[in-house]
C-alpha cells in the first residue's frame, strides 16, 4: 500500500515534469473517447429510428360494411388476447376516408361524388413487430373474423400488413445497425491503436530512464507502477474531458438537432448516457493500463 502512494506521487510528479508528453496522451485519449462516445450516441439515435420504424408495423383487418358491432367486438377482444399484440382500435369508414384524404395528395377523393368505397377496419398495433406474420395468421383463422371480413371468399385478402415492406424494413434497419456497429468497432480499434502508439512513444522517450531504474535494482513491478499509474491518470483525465464535452453536446447541441431534424428521434434516456459514460471511463482506463503495460514490456526484459 505504501508503494501505491509512491506510485501515485511519482505519477503526479511525472505528470508535471513531462507535461507535453502527458498532454499529448491525454488529448489522444480524450479525442478517441470523444469519437467513440459520439458514435455511441449516434448508435442510439439510429436504434431509435429503427425501432420507431419497426413499431409502425401494424396489421389492418378490413371489415365488411354490414358486420354487426357485436361480431366486431368479439374479434377485437379475440385479437387483444393474442400474444405479441399491443393495442387494438377500430377505424370507421368515415375515418378511413378522412385518413386517406390526408395522406394521399391525389385528387381521386374529389371524384368520388360522396361515395365512400373504403371499408372500416380493425387496427392492430404489435408489441413485437417480428411476430406480425404469426398474429396475422391467427386473426385469419378466427371464424368470426372470416364471417365479418371485407372479402369473405378470401379472408387473407382482408388483412393488410405489407409483408414485403416489413421484410425490407427489417433488412434495412439490420443493415444500418450492422454498418454502424462496424463503424463503431473500427473507430474503437483505431482509437486503441492511437492510444497504444501514444503510450509507446511516450515510454520510448523514457526508455533510458527505465533502463537506469533497472540498473539501480528496481524490480519490474516497481518500475511499472508509476508508469501504469500515469497511464491510468491520463485515461481518467481524458475520459473526464470526453464526458464533459459529451454532456455539453447533450444539453446544447442535441436539442437544436432535435428541432431541426424532427424525423430523427434524439430522445436518449439518462441511463443510456450513464451507460455510455461508464463505458468510456472503463474502456479508457483499460486502454491506458493495458497500453502502458504492453508498451513497457520490451524495456523490462531485465
Amino acid at each position, binding site marked *: 500500500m505504501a*508503494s501505491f502512494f509512491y506510485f501515485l506521487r511519482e505519477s503526479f510528479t511525472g505528470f508535471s515534469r513531462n507535461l507535453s508528453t502527458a498532454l499529448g496522451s491525454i488529448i489522444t485519449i480524450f479525442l478517441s473517447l470523444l469519437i467513440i462516445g459520439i458514435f455511441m450516441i449516434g448508435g442510439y439515435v439510429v436504434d431509435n429510428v429503427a425501432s420507431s420504424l419497426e413499431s409502425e408495423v401494424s396489421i389492418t383487418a378490413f371489415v365488411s360494411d354490414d358486420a354487426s358491432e357485436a361480431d366486431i367486438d368479439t374479434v377485437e377482444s379475440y385479437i387483444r388476447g393474442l400474444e405479441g399484440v399491443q393495442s387494438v382500435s377500430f377505424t370507421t369508414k368515415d375515418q378511413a376516408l378522412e385518413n386517406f384524404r390526408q395522406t394521399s395528395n391525389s385528387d381521386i377523393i374529389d371524384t368520388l361524388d360522396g361515395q365512400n368505397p373504403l371499408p372500416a377496419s380493425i387496427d392492430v398495433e404489435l408489441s413485437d413487430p417480428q411476430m406480425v406474420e404469426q398474429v396475422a395468421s391467427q386473426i385469419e383463422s378466427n371464424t368470426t373474423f372470416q364471417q365479418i371480413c371485407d372479402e369473405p371468399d378470401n379472408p387473407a385478402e382482408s388483412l393488410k400488413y405489407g409483408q414485403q415492406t416489413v421484410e425490407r424494413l427489417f433488412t434495412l434497419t439490420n443493415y444500418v445497425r450492422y454498418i454502424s456497429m462496424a463503424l463503431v468497432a473500427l473507430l474503437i480499434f483505431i482509437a486503441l491503436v492511437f492510444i497504444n502508439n501514444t503510450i509507446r512513444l511516450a515510454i520510448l522517450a523514457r526508455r533510458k530512464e527505465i533502463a*537506469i*531504474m*533497472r*540498473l539501480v*535494482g*528496481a524490480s519490474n513491478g*516497481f518500475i511499472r507502477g508509476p508508469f501504469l499509474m500515469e497511464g491510468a491518470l491520463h485515461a481518467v483525465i481524458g475520459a473526464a474531458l470526453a464526458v464533459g464535452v459529451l454532456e455539453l453536446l447533450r444539453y446544447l447541441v442535441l436539442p437544436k438537432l432535435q428541432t431541426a431534424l424532427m424525423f430523427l428521434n434524439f430522445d436518449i434516456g439518462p441511463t443510456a448516457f450513464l451507460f455510455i459514460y461508464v463505458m468510456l471511463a472503463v474502456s479508457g482506463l483499460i486502454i491506458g493500463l493495458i497500453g502502458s503495460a504492453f508498451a513497457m514490456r520490451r524495456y523490462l526484459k*531485465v
Partner: protein
Amino acid sequence: MTYDMSQGMPAYSARQATSQLSAALPELDIDDIPQSYGLPVITFDHVTKIYPAQPNKPALDDISLEIFAGEFVFLIGHSGSGKSTFIRMLIREIKPTSGTIKVADEDLTTMRNWRVPYLRRNIGCVFQDFKLLPNKTVFENVAFALEVIGKSRHVIKTQVPEVLRLVGLQDKLNKRPDQLSGGEQQRVSIARAIVNRPPLLICDEPTGNLDPQTSRGIMDLLERINRTGTTVLVATHDREMVDNMRRRVIALDRGVLTQDRERGVYRVNG
C-alpha cells in the same frame, strides 16, 4: 591552503564521518580490518565475453580470479581493455559468452531474471556515465535507491542528506542532473551507490571528472567504507591514486588479465 572544504569536498572530519557511516554499514566492527583470506565475494571462472557487434575480438578473454570479502581492489587497464565490461557482468547487465561468474555464491549465469533486481540492490555501483535519472532531483535520485528496497520515508529523509553531505553536495539537493557540473553528477552517482550500504561497492572511474583534491576526498571515503567491511572494486585510470594507496591491483590489457598483485602500482603490463 585556503580551500574551503565545504565546497570542493565534504565538510567532515574523518572521525565524524566514520561514525555516521558505521551506523549505516554492514555488521563488521570498524577495527576489524579485513584480510584477503575472507570468503570469495566475486569469482570469475574462465570468463569470456564476446560482443555480437565485435565477434572476432573478445572484450574479456578467459578471465579467472577471486575477490574476497573486505578487499579493496583496483581494476586498471587502457581505454577499451574491458574494465566496464567486467563490471557490467558483475551486476548482470550483460551475461558472459562462456565461463561462470559468482557473486556471493550465487551463479549469475544461471540466475533467474526476477532475482536480478535483488542482486543489484546488494551491489552499489558508480557508473562511468553516471546514469542519473534526468527527471529527478539530486535528492530523488539518491532516494530512489532506498525507495527501491522499500525504506520508509523517515529513513530516506535522514540518510539521503547525510550521504549527500559526505560527497559535498549538501547545497544541491534540489537541482536536476542537467543543472550540475560533471563532477557533481559523478558525486551524485557515488552517493546513490553508497546510500543503502551495500556489502559490495563497484566504482567505474569514480573520479574521472573530479579535481585531485575532491578525488582524494572520495578515495578517503571509499577507503573508510572499505574499512567497515565493504568489499570495494574500483576501475580507474588515476595513476596517482593507485600508486599512493598500494592496494591489490588487477590489470587488464585488451581483455586479458595481465597482472594481479597485492600492494600493486599502476602498470598495465605485468
